[in-house]
């Protein structure tokens, strides 16, 4: 859908845990050739949440940075004007009891708040962004806060263990003083059971190779093609493209298939250094691009959620982004540079504490 009214991103923030584990450590423990899985997935290391970190704490940390940046940019902005909050994750700390209420309280948001936790595998965060944009467009909210965050679960030894990571990003949507205008968005959804976790189960299950062609590729391609058709744009008219990053391989393959170059894609590939942050993945990849983009750049974003669906967005950066960014601290690249490596034993202890 083409969006003619003014709506878009007012501010954003990110958060990554302090710890990371190199894939070589996991390969060694699982008896794989060192470098084999890492080379295939195109992921070097993945983040590991500390014992006291979960989706709620990650959401709070990312949102705090977004709020600080918004307040810094405009004295007219106040967090009390945020009247909608949507948090997308597949690792909400409670099965029943919202993450969002804890996050809202911790951030000191107004009690006049439309709020819900969202769940749609890895695209729950971007679905929250789309909902927030809609609330602003309809006039229901002056500002909306959308967060995608996860502390992804994987069974030791499962293929998921090589990439399941933690992190998140928060986006404040509004209609004035935008740093990136939302020009169009479209979503697709079909009943494609490629990845699931039933109530009571600790770890998700997946359909192996079924998660590829009929799931990720079909939906990402369909949503992206719809967006391009609706906006009447060709891939070469886009400055940056972002595709969901379950690993570093899939987004490269889908970008090539859709006619995008590696140059258009490369700024978004933080997955190589942080792993798959699930609902946090595309919000973090978008943050990586916004951390670098100059004025007037078109950014195409397609998130994928197993089950399955995809959300596509077209953003265009404004002079406000470049202007405001000069004062920002802790860009995503700074967070990547401060990651500290841990051994498999330390990682294993952290993971054990998480589930038992």
């Amino acid at each position, binding site marked *: 859908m083409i969006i003619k009214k003014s709506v878009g991103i007012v501010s954003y923030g990110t958060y990554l845990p302090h710890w990371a584990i190199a894939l070589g450590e996991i390969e060694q423990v699982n008896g*794989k*050739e060192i470098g*084999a899985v890492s080379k*295939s997935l195109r992921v070097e290391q993945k983040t590991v949440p500390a014992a006291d970190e979960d989706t709620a704490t990650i959401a709070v940390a990312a949102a705090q940075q977004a709020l600080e940046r918004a307040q810094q940019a405009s004295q007219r902005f106040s967090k009390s004007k945020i009247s909608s909050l949507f948090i997308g994750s597949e690792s909400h700390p409670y099965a029943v009891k919202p993450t969002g209420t804890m996050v809202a309280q911790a951030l000191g948001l107004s009690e006049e708040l439309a709020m819900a936790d969202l769940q749609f595998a890895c695209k729950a965060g971007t679905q929250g962004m789309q909902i927030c944009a809609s609330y602003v467009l309809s006039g229901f909210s002056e500002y909306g806060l959308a967060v995608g965050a996860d502390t992804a679960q994987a069974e030791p030894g499962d293929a998921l263990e090589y990439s399941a990571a933690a992190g998140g990003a928060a986006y404040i949507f509004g209609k004035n003083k935008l740093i990136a205008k939302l020009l169009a968005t479209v979503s697709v959804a079909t009943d494609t059971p490629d990845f699931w976790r039933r109530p009571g189960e600790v770890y998700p299950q*997946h*359909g*192996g*190779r*079924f998660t590829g*062609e*009929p799931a990720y590729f079909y939906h990402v391609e369909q949503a992206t093609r719809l967006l391009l058709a609706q906006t009447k744009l060709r891939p070469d008219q886009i400055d940056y493209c972002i595709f969901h990053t379950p690993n570093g391989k899939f987004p490269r393959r889908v970008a090539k298939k859709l006619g995008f170059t590696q140059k258009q894609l490369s700024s978004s590939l933080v997955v190589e250094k942080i792993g798959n942050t699930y609902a946090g993945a595309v919000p973090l990849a978008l943050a990586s691009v916004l951390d670098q983009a100059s004025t007037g750049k078109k950014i195409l974003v397609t998130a994928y959620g197993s089950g399955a669906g995809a959300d596509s967005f077209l953003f265009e950066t404004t002079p406000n982004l470049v202007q405001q960014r000069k004062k920002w601290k802790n860009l995503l690249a700074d967070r990547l540079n401060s990651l500290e490596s841990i051994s498999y034993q330390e990682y294993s202890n952290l993971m054990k504490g998480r589930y038992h």
Partner: protein
Amino acid sequence: MNIFVAGRYSTKVGELWDLSLADLFVEAVNGVINQAELEPPQIEAVFVASKAAGEFNHQLHLNALVSQFFKHQPPAMRIEGACASGGLALIAAEQALLSGQYKTVLVVGAEKMTDVGANRATEILSMAASDDLERGSTFPGLYALLAERHMAEFGTTREQLSAVAVKNHRQALNNPLAQFHQEFNLEQVSCSPMIASPLRLLDCSPISDGAAAVILTSKKIKNKPRIIGFGHAQDSLDLAHRRTLTELVATKRATEQALAMAKLTPQEISLAEVHDCFTIAEIFAIEDLGFFKKGDGGRATLAGETAVGGKVVVNQSGGLKAFGHPIGATGIKQLVYVADQLEQDRCQYGLTHNVGGSGATAVVHILSKQ
């Protein structure tokens, strides 16, 4: 012997996410009837091959599943012999024709393997090994033992194993139905991820969905390929009771039967579709079938003697390695491919070789142009 291949059909082989087991059977049955230009009521009996539809798809009673596609519901039976299920269904059909009970029968095989994950598929496939003596083993593991023995005894090399995969992937480029259309070089195969030493990922045939069917008849039909020999032999289910680990005795015995029936020598056969579930299996096959002397299969493959233009073209279709290995269909799709080549006048005689387990069951067929 008058058994003619009146019709033949193979589906595309691959990860066919949108097709169920029943869809695969329907496509193969409709396809073969159309190709044969027969009317469905002419099918007097049906032989259905599948290795593990119960485990893969929660569907047994496959004879009834296929028979009900026909208004006249012909008698049907399901035959299972691990990866040789397709070959055994052909043998059963041929015996029925030779007995004179039927004149025209349908043989159809299918496997829908991608409804389960890779771990479960490996577990299901391992049911073809001895549950008493080989529990916990996998087929890559068992064939790795055979490979190690062959390498130790004859000096077969890593490069020679890789040459099988390189050739079969290259030959599959000309087969539109093949699962893979991707070339690899020797180094890529030799450096692919380790599965069970010495076998690597690109030494192994894939997990595939697919179906194949033939209509066999004892009525003489002009310009249709003829089955002129078949053989079927067994060996111990487990590797521990084998006389030797450097040849598959069942293959040798089945080949002797088929050659005697066809009154041919291996040297008269110029096209062979052999059971290359692993690269080492093709080296065993071309030796045990008599194309090369024992221990010489690796050298011959690396020298190009089994590639198109060589002494005998082995797995021109891409074989199990690159055409794919939808287990119940495999023995039948080999026959479909060879019959196709014969009818197109590409050679005079062709052979198919289908193995169950680590060599406990072997089925060999020889076809002639007419």
